């Protein structure tokens, strides 16, 4: 159990009231008894649905295996090793616990560093977030769990990045949220984000 879990365990939970529990049981059992038993017709339709679902599940699994193969082939290919990622690793080594992000824009590279080493800036999983709009491209190289502040079209952006347990990247700015499932635009910029395969 980590410290955070220990803290959360400090929340006392009230014991259920015995009368309320009995009342709840009474209402639940009344509702249960008022239910109509399943008819044979329902059982048959359930069987058909189950068969159809099995076929769908099989097709889904086959598609998933093929997709995983394609993704693995892509991830292990040398093309995927981003030179920017190597640069991020090198800068992180030069400034331990100081590097927050590297922003590449119009051929310029901006390094965002803290004045002094900060434990909150210990390197985590490196990530690449790309913002693209009409040929204009901004690459933000940072780490999971960080907040990167920069100016975008005159607006101060606080981009937060997070790598999920499923290996996907989530990007947020206030109420704005981008993920693989919600591919929203930020000020008209298309977003792409992925973890970087870099040894740190």
């Amino acid at each position, binding site marked *: 159990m980590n410290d*955070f*879990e220990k*803290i*959360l365990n*400090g*929340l*006392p*939970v*009230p*014991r*259920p*009231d015995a009368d*309320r*529990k009995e*009342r*709840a*049981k009474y*209402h*639940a*059992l009344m*509702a*249960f*008894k*008022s*239910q*109509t*038993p*399943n008819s044979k017709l*329902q059982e048959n339709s359930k069987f058909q649905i189950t068969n159809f679902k099995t076929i769908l599940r099989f097709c889904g699994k086959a598609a998933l295996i093929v997709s995983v193969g394609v993704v693995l082939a892509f991830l292990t290919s040398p093309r995927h090793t981003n030179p920017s990622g190597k640069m991020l690793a090198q800068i992180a080594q030069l400034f331990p616990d100081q590097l927050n992000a590297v922003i590449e824009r119009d051929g310029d590279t901006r390094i965002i560093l803290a004045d002094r080493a900060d434990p909150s800036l210990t390197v985590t999983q490196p990530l690449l977030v790309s913002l693209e709009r009409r040929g204009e491209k901004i690459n933000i190289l940072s780490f999971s*769990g960080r907040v990167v502040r920069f100016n975008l079209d005159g607006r101060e952006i606080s981009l937060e990045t*997070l790598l*999920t*347990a*499923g290996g*996907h990247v*989530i990007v*947020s700015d206030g109420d704005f*949220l981008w*993920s*693989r*499932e*919600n591919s929203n635009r930020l000020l008209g910029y298309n977003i792409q984000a992925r973890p970087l395969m870099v040894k740190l």
Partner: protein
Amino acid sequence: MNQTEELANESRLVGAAISGDADAFADLFNRYYAMIHAFAYRLTLSAHDADDIAQETFVSAARAIGGFRREASFKNWLYQIAANRQRDLFRQRQRRRDFNLPLTAGIEETHVAGGDGDIADFSPLHAALAALPDDWRHALVLAYYENRNHAEATQILGCAEATVSWRIFRAKRQLKQRLHHAAKRHE
């Protein structure tokens, strides 16, 4: 009883309840009422709401058990119903406009498990949890108190896994910040 035996027993009870066995459903009620009550309390931070939600959860489960898929997790199904009942309860209150105070303003006295009498819980943790947006607290409660993984939480809350991960991350960070500030004020 080990976990495998417990699951087999649960599966047998669920099967019997689906077939209309009221005793089996009563056994399931006895087995999971305290768990759902605690879950509802952590969602709402109110003992009265926890009572209502726990009751509504089992009434809904009784009505819908005929359509329950046996291969699914019964526990997760109950969590899902409870989370939905909590949303319904809060929506009804908002409609009636009798819930216009934030949760932080409504920290109530609770009967603490293991305590001899009533203990008012005004702890910084309670206040910090109450200050979280509902959606964030739901995700955090499922992950940390109910030990559901992100995929299960996704299923229970009916949103994308990325959204669940994000809510947990934000909730943890806000909670840590609030507890840190509370500790500083206390010094």
